[in-house]
Structures are given as structure tokens and as C-alpha cells.
């Protein structure tokens, strides 16, 4: 009797739960913070209490005497290598401190109590130095020098020019000139910073870390340790969120290693929540001066942008955000003439790292509110003005991003239709003329982001090794890291789909750099696209190997066969030719012809590096989004209540319905925080609100209804047509909220977050119609 195997429903686009969710809901998942190794010591860091000072002496003699203290690392007894993007950060500071988070010593001991006691007993003598906190002040002649080898305090600069801005300005009918002050926010990952370092007796290091870029992490860590990168093995236990914060090496990681080396025992170093606020990287703050011009008919003529980034004491990825910021400033909407200049001067503030959205959060806040201002100036509505300047599919931006299937106009039109935007916008504008305490508002913002990787390193690739065991199950060893974002689910779906096996027969292995093939890391909305392509291609290779063997066995040619439900079947009628596991065993145990199903794939996206002028098509695909926020403002209290966010985004193709919605909603919550409530308040270099009480992340009662509409235009280079999606939801909401608040009360806030206090102050300052 022939066995007929029915075609199962496709998993692509399904609401497929994360494979690790069951363990997480029962509390079984062992996060790095939960790990205990035999004979492991606990460690903490002695930080400075100054923002700029010469270190005269560090005295650890009393601390060493505390019972249970096993190792103390200081600049004196530790390797001298540097970390950071510009290699300007000594993990332990010996000569001077440059910001409040600076590390003086690491202490490891048997108990946390002993370590805390020892930290108190470390005595540091300083000579205070003059300070500077403002990026423009830091550039002035005679400003205190933060790094002796960085004259003028100049860190990274970015410059881009296209067309003729001066001429365009002269020919413009309308020119707007604005200044924006974009604030500090921080990731607040729920799992506080933690690392475990352990040497074997050969002197090789195993480091358990929360990093989201395990392979280049080794390269960045090694110089600080005086050991070859090849002697480092990176293990990534489950982590409590990352959002970009773990894309660099930070001082606490080498410090844990120094302590493990001295103690010859495993050392676990961890942060308190307060430390997490003070001593983990922030989003990059920015002061933006921008000029934009247009013709009477609404055609944008030019943009001219000057950005000052507060670099803080050291350089991590924050200072490189202009690379992304620039793409939106120069290429979001048709900008025929554009100049972009940025500089990141060193100051005595804490420093910034990468954070979901990477400069595009800031760029979009600026450009999307500026678009609204300009529409009003021109007497056009916000939709009409945007559509007038939206690129068509196939256009290239000044930096040469190829907008193959630009869905910008569609995103704008669909979002406007779904929300009845124009009618409400006009109504609420009109309502401002009559008295009333509660004002309704609606606002739109749009952006564009790389959605097919981002070639910032010479390779933007990801490796996969796929093996089938003798029971027909697949193990996928991928370079891609799981940080909660759900690549485990996506890869499971892609492989299960190609191999015709149930998802429960797919195992993902991706937590050990000694086993996994290389990957750039989780950033730039790249993982579904790049690691997804890599895993899918590997599965296709394995499938070809299996079908070829089945063809040899069955005399049915391989192109007439497919994998389905754990069988090899004939494509046309679903008749089983053989069971998959039986075939795999037959291939494996075939004597001299033995064949193991085991393939590897290294996927490199079709994209290019920027040249030195910042021109280059860095991503295989780009995605647009238009988000509309509806809200109300209480003009008496300044309270903003969000009603609804309608998010229309070009996603190529939905792979996992649960995953994509979860990324959208989670990103939107962070975007709302950026626009309305979150600010890390730093005064004279000191973090003033290092706790969840005063640093206000969005909580459940503040979440509005979210409606997502996905434009699925099947990106030809993506896995089953998918694009990367996870940063736009964090990038766009802030600006759409700002535009909605303006629609409600007629006040612009170029200095988010738009807190009740700022609203009340603005309304009472008479800049808008008085509140009733």
C-alpha cells in the first residue's frame, strides 16, 4: 500500500511560539545571572566618585585584609591594553578618571558581603581637574582636555556633501532653520550586567557573557587581556535583553578576567540596577542644527545638518551613530542637495553605546517633526507634503542606497486611510481655537532603515552548519545569537519548512564560539535576513543531498521528489518513497559509500561598504514605515494619554507572526518612552535618576492599542522574501507622538521627552492658546 503524505500547512507566516518559551514560563531557564560554577568567586567594581581628576594613589592594603577577599585588580597589577571603538578606554584607570562610571579596582571574594566591605576600604586620592560637559564647549579653545592625545577633544567626525546646498538655499521659497536637543536614554535591560570568567590550566579563557556579538567580541577583548583572541572561548547563556547595549566590550568584562587570572578561580562580576543605570552605555545624545528648504509647490530643495554628539569620556559605538543618522538625514525623502557634518567631542559625561535604532531614532525625531513644520509653513497637509517628496521604487539616495521596492508612499497612504488622518488632523487643529481642557491630537512620522543587513565590516555574513542525526532530526549550528528577539523561532521555521520535518525536530545550537561559525552579531535589524538566509541555504543544501540519495534508491529523479512530513515523497501525488530517518541511516551506514548529511553555508549579502565619502549601498534591502499616533493632552496637568498607534511597515514577508508583532510592540514601547517619559538625567556628569522610580520606562497601563499593518512585497534577496524589521518600531513613535502633541496643543517640543512638566511650562509660557 502506498503511503500518501499530505502537505502540512506552511510554517512561514505562522504564529509560532519561541522554542525557549516553555522553559522561561516555568522559571527553569538558567540566565547568566543565575549561574554558579564550582569554587566561583563573586566580584564587584570600585568606581570613582569624581568626573575628572588625576589619580594620586590607590590604597588597597586595608581591603586586602578583609576575610574572604581573594583578588583585587587595579591598573597597577593588570594588563595595560585598551578597549573601545577608538581604543581609548583602559578597563582600570591608573592615571586619571574622565567620567563618573570610571573603574578604579575590581574585587573578588567568597561572599558579596566581604566584597562590599572591601570596596569601602579602598582609598583613592585625587586631584580634581577642570571639567567640561557640553559638546560645543568642549570644542572651544582652552577647554579642559579629556584625553591628552586627543587635541581639541575631537573624537569621531563624519562629513557628507551632495549637490550644492548654498545654491539650493538661494533658490528655495521657504527655509526652516531649527535646533534640536536630543537626550540621554538607556537600555534598562531587565537582566543586569553580568559576566563570568574562568581560565583552564593551559591559560585559555572561557568567558560567559551577555554579548550580542560573540565573534568580534573575542577580537575586541583580547588586546585588553594580553592573550591571543584564539585563546578565548565565548559562551552565551540566556540573557535578560540587550537592545544594542552588548555590542562592545565594556570595562567590567576584562576586569572579571583579570580577577579570575589572579585568583585562578572562576569569577562572576555583576551589576546592581543602580550600576546598570550609571555604568552601562546610553543612547547617544545629540544636538542637531538643521536647515531645510522647499519650493512653493512642496518640493524639498536641500538639507543642511550639523550635529554635535556628546561623546563622554570614552568612545564606544555611540559616537559612530552618524553612519546611520546620515542615511535618514540625507536619504529619507528626495533630498537633491544635502550636507551633513557631525563631530563627537570628548566631555566628562558617561559615554554612549549602540541602542536599537542606532542614530535613526534621533534622525527620525528631527526629520519627521521638521517635515510637519515645513508642511505647515507651506500651507500643505502633512500627507500631501510627504507624498510629494517620497521616492519611487528604484530610486537611489545621495549615499547610493538603492530603494528597490520603496514602499514609502504606500506606507503613508495606507496609514492615513486607516486612521482617517486628514479629517482628524484638520478637526483637531480647528478645535485648538475654542477653549477646552482635553485636546485630541493625531500625528504621523515616517522613516527608512536598512533591512538586509548593514555592511559596516568587510563581511556582513553569517555561517551555519547543519547536520542530520540518524533519527531524521536536524541540528542547526548558527553564528546568530539569541538575545530574546526570537531568531531561534525564525530559524526553526525556515529549516523545518525546507526539510519537511516538524519544528520540534529542529535543534538550534548557538551559544558557544568554539562551535558556532562566524557572524557579525545581532544588530542593524540583520539577523532574520542574514542568519535566516544562511540557515535556509544550509537546509536547501541538505535537502539536495538527501533527495539525490533518495533518487538513487528509488529510481525517481530528484526533481520529482520533495521532503514532507518526515518522508521523501513524490511531488505530484505525495506518495512516500521512503521515511526520512530510514533514508538518512541508509546513507550513513552504507559501507564504503557512507554519507553523513552535514552541510555548511556562509551567507554574505549582496551589499557594499561605504567609500570614504560615505557613498555605498550598504544593505541588500531597505524598509520604510509610517506610524500614526492618536492621543489626548490634558492641558491642565500636561498629561498625555496615548489612544492608538497605527504602524504600517514594509516587512518583505512575515515569517513569524508572533515574533514580528512582538518586535513591533516591544520596539514601539521603547519608542514611546523616548518620546514621552524616559530620560537619563545627567547633571555635571552625575547621573541623577539611577532607578526605575525616577527613570520612567513605559509600563502596561500606559500602552495604547497598537495596530500593525504589514506590507509584504517579497524582498527577492530575503529568506522567503523577508526583510529585517526590528528597529523601525523603536525609531518612529517618538516623532509621531511629537507631531500628535503639536496637533493637539500647537506646541513643538524639540527637546524630548515631552513630559507633563514641559507641556505645562510651555502652555503657561503663552506659546500656545491658553489652557482652560
Amino acid at each position, binding site marked *: 500500500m502506498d503511503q500518501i503524505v499530505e502537505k502540512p500547512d506552511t510554517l512561514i507566516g505562522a504564529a509560532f*511560539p519561541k522554542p525557549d518559551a516553555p522553559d522561561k514560563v516555568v*522559571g527553569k531557564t538558567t540566565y547568566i545571572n543565575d549561574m554558579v560554577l564550582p569554587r566561583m568567586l563573586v566580584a564587584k567594581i570600585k568606581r570613582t566618585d569624581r568626573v575628572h581628576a588625576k589619580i594620586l594613589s590607590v590604597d588597597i592594603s586595608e581591603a586586602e585584609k578583609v576575610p574572604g577577599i581573594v583578588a583585587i585588580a587595579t591598573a597597577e597589577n593588570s594588563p595595560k591594553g585598551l578597549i573601545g571603538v577608538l581604543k581609548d578606554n583602559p578597563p582600570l584607570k591608573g592615571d586619571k578618571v574622565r567620567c563618573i562610571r570610571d573603574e578604579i579596582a575590581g574585587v573578588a571574594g567568597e561572599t558579596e558581603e566581604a566584597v562590599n566591605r572591601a570596596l569601602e576600604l579602598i582609598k583613592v586620592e585625587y586631584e580634581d581637574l577642570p571639567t567640561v560637559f557640553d559638546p560645543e564647549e568642549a570644542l572651544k579653545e582652552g577647554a579642559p582636555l579629556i584625553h591628552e592625545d586627543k587635541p581639541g577633544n575631537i573624537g569621531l567626525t563624519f562629513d557628507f556633501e551632495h549637490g550644492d546646498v548654498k545654491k539650493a538655499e538661494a533658490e528655495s521659497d521657504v527655509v526652516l532653520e531649527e535646533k534640536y536637543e536630543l537626550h540621554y536614554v538607556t537600555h534598562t535591560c531587565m537582566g543586569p550586567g553580568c559576566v563570568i570568567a574562568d581560565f583552564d590550566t593551559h591559560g585559555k579563557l572561557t568567558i560567559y557573557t551577555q554579548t550580542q556579538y560573540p565573534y568580534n567580541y573575542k577580537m575586541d577583548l583580547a588586546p585588553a587581556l594580553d592573550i591571543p583572541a584564539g585563546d578565548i572561548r565565548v559562551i552565551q547563556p540566556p*540573557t*535578560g*535583553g540587550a537592545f544594542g547595549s552588548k555590542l562592545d566590550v565594556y570595562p567590567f568584562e576584562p576586569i572579571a578576567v583579570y580577577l579570575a587570572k589572579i585568583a585562578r578561580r572562576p569569577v562572576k562580576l555583576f551589576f546592581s540596577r543602580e550600576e546598570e543605570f550609571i555604568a552601562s552605555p546610553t543612547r547617544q545624545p545629540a544636538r542637531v542644527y538643521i536647515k531645510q528648504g522647499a519650493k512653493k509647490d512642496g518640493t524639498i530643495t536641500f538639507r543642511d545638518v550639523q550635529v554635535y554628539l556628546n561623546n563622554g569620556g570614552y568612545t564606544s559605538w555611540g559616537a559612530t551613530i552618524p553612519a546611520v543618522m546620515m542615511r535618514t538625514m540625507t536619504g529619507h525623502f528626495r533630498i537633491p542637495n544635502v550636507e551633513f557634518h557631525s563631530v563627537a567631542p570628548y566631555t566628562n559625561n558617561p559615554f554612549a553605546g549602540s541602542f536599537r535604532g542606532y542614530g535613526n531614532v534621533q534622525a527620525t525625531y528631527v526629520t519627521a517633526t521638521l517635515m510637519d513644520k515645513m508642511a505647515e509653513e507651506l500651507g500643505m497637509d502633512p500627507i500631501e507634503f510627504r507624498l510629494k517628496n517620497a521616492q519611487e521604487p528604484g530610486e537611489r539616495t545621495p549615499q547610493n542606497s538603492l530603494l528597490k521596492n520603496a514602499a514609502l508612499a504606500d506606507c503613508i497612504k495606507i496609514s492615513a486611510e486607516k486612521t482617517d488622518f486628514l479629517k482628524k488632523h484638520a478637526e483637531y487643529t480647528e478645535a485648538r481655537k475654542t477653549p477646552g481642557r482635553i485636546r485630541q491630537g493625531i500625528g504621523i512620522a515616517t522613516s527608512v532603515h536598512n533591512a538586509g543587513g548593514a555592511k559596516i565590516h568587510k563581511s556582513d555574513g553569517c555561517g551555519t552548519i547543519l547536520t542530520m542525526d540518524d533519527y531524521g532530526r536536524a541540528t542547526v549550528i548558527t553564528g546568530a545569537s539569541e538575545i*530574546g528577539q526570537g531568531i531561534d523561532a525564525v530559524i526553526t521555521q525556515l529549516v523545518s519548512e525546507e526539510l519537511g520535518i516538524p519544528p520540534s525536530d529542529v535543534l538550534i545550537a548557538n551559544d558557544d564560539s568554539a562551535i558556532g561559525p562566524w557572524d557579525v552579531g545581532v544588530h542593524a535589524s540583520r539577523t532574520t535576513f542574514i542568519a535566516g538566509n544562511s540557515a535556509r541555504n544550509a537546509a536547501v543544501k541538505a535537502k539536495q543531498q538527501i533527495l539525490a540519495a533518495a533518487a538513487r534508491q528509488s529510481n525517481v529523479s530528484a526533481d520529482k521528489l520533495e521532503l514532507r512530513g518526515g518522508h521523501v515523497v513524490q511531488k505530484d501525488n505525495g506518495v512516500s518513497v521512503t521515511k526520512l530517518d530510514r533514508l538518512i541511516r541508509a546513507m550513513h551506514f552504507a559501507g564504503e559509500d557512507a554519507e553523513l548529511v552535514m552541510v555548511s553555508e556562509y551567507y554574505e549579502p549582496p551589499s557594499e561598504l561605504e567609500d570614504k565619502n560615505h557613498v555605498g549601498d550598504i544593505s541588500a534591502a531597505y524598509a520604510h514605515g509610517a506610524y500614526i499616533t492618536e492621543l489626548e493632552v490634558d492641558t491642565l496637568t500636561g498629561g498625555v494619554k496615548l489612544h492608538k498607534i497605527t504602524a504600517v511597515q514594509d516587512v518583505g514577508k512575515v515569517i513569524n507572526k508572533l515574533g514580528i508583532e512582538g518586535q513591533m510592540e516591544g520596539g514601539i514601547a521603547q519608542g514611546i518612552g523616548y518620546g514621552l517619559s524616559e530620560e537619563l538625567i545627567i547633571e555635571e556628569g552625575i547621573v541623577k535618576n539611577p532607578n526605575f522610580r525616577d527613570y520612567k520606562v513605559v509600563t502596561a*497601563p500606559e500602552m495604547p492599542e497598537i495596530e500593525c499593518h504589514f506590507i509584504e512585497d517579497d524582498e527577492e534577496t530575503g529568506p522567503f522574501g523577508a526583510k529585517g524589521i526590528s528597529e523601525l518600531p523603536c525609531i518612529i513613535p517618538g516623532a509621531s507622538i511629537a507631531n500628535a502633541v503639536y496637533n493637539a496643543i500647537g506646541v513643538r517640543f524639540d527637546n524630548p521627552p515631552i513630559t507633563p512638566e514641559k507641556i505645562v511650562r510651555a502652555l503657561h509660557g503663552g506659546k500656545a492658546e491658553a489652557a482652560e
Partner: protein
Amino acid sequence: MSAKIDIEFTVNGAVKQVTVPATASALDMLRDQLDLKGAKEACGEGECGACTVIVDGVSVCSCLSYAVDFDGRKIETIEGVQSDEGLDPIQQAFVDYGAVQCGYCTPGMVMQVKHTLDKNPNPTKEEIQRGLEGNVCRCTGYSKIIDAVTEVASS
């Protein structure tokens, strides 16, 4: 060094006797002495709910409770929520509705939801949201968590 005190209480139905420092937090005791590491310390200041457990039917931040205050109490932790039949309906809904990303907030969320639904089995959406007010999740934006709770409440 603070004084040590003997306490006795039930955790997930089992009687436990432990000796704890007078100043130890209940969370540290659960995690370090009883090896119940499901509850997390994400702030240690009562501001995030990651450490939520249920004490005599009421959800509390175990990071703010003293271990000694658990003496004579009935404690439920995330480890005791799953039954022999499998996941609790709340846990199952969290899985099915995609309410879990990094999962660090999840044990606390599940305990808080359990408490909310025990008190009020038919909450409105607003009541669900208010019930979760003290639990921070940085990944999900809460929407899927609210969906999951709505599902459990309606079935």
C-alpha cells in the same frame, strides 16, 4: 555580621526550615539557600516586579521582604505553578501568545497575573493593565502579555 534566625514555612507545598541572617532578603534566601532561581533580581528596590512571589495569597516583591518575615507563611513561587498535568493555563497562554521574549520578567509576570486572576477572574483590559503596573518588561511592550491574560480570563 548579622544574627542568624531559624524560620519555617511552606514553599510550593513543601515545608522548609532554613537559618537566615536577620537582614537577608526573602529573594536571596529563595535563590541562594533554596536554589529557587525562577524569581529574578532586576532592581532589588521593589520597582520592577521581577522577584514577585505569592505570600499567603498576596503577590509581593520578594526583594523588599525580609526572609524572616516568611516564617510561618505559605509561599508560592514560579517553580510551583506547573502541575503534573503540564503548564498552568497562564503559562500556556504566555507561550502561545508570544508573551515571552528574553523572559527575564516572565516569572514575576506569571506570578502577578496569577494573583490578579485569583482576585478577579474576569478582569477588563484596563484591570489587567493595572494589575501589571508594577511589573516592568523591556522586550514585549506588554501587548502580548495582555493578550495572554485576556485569553486565560475568558476561558
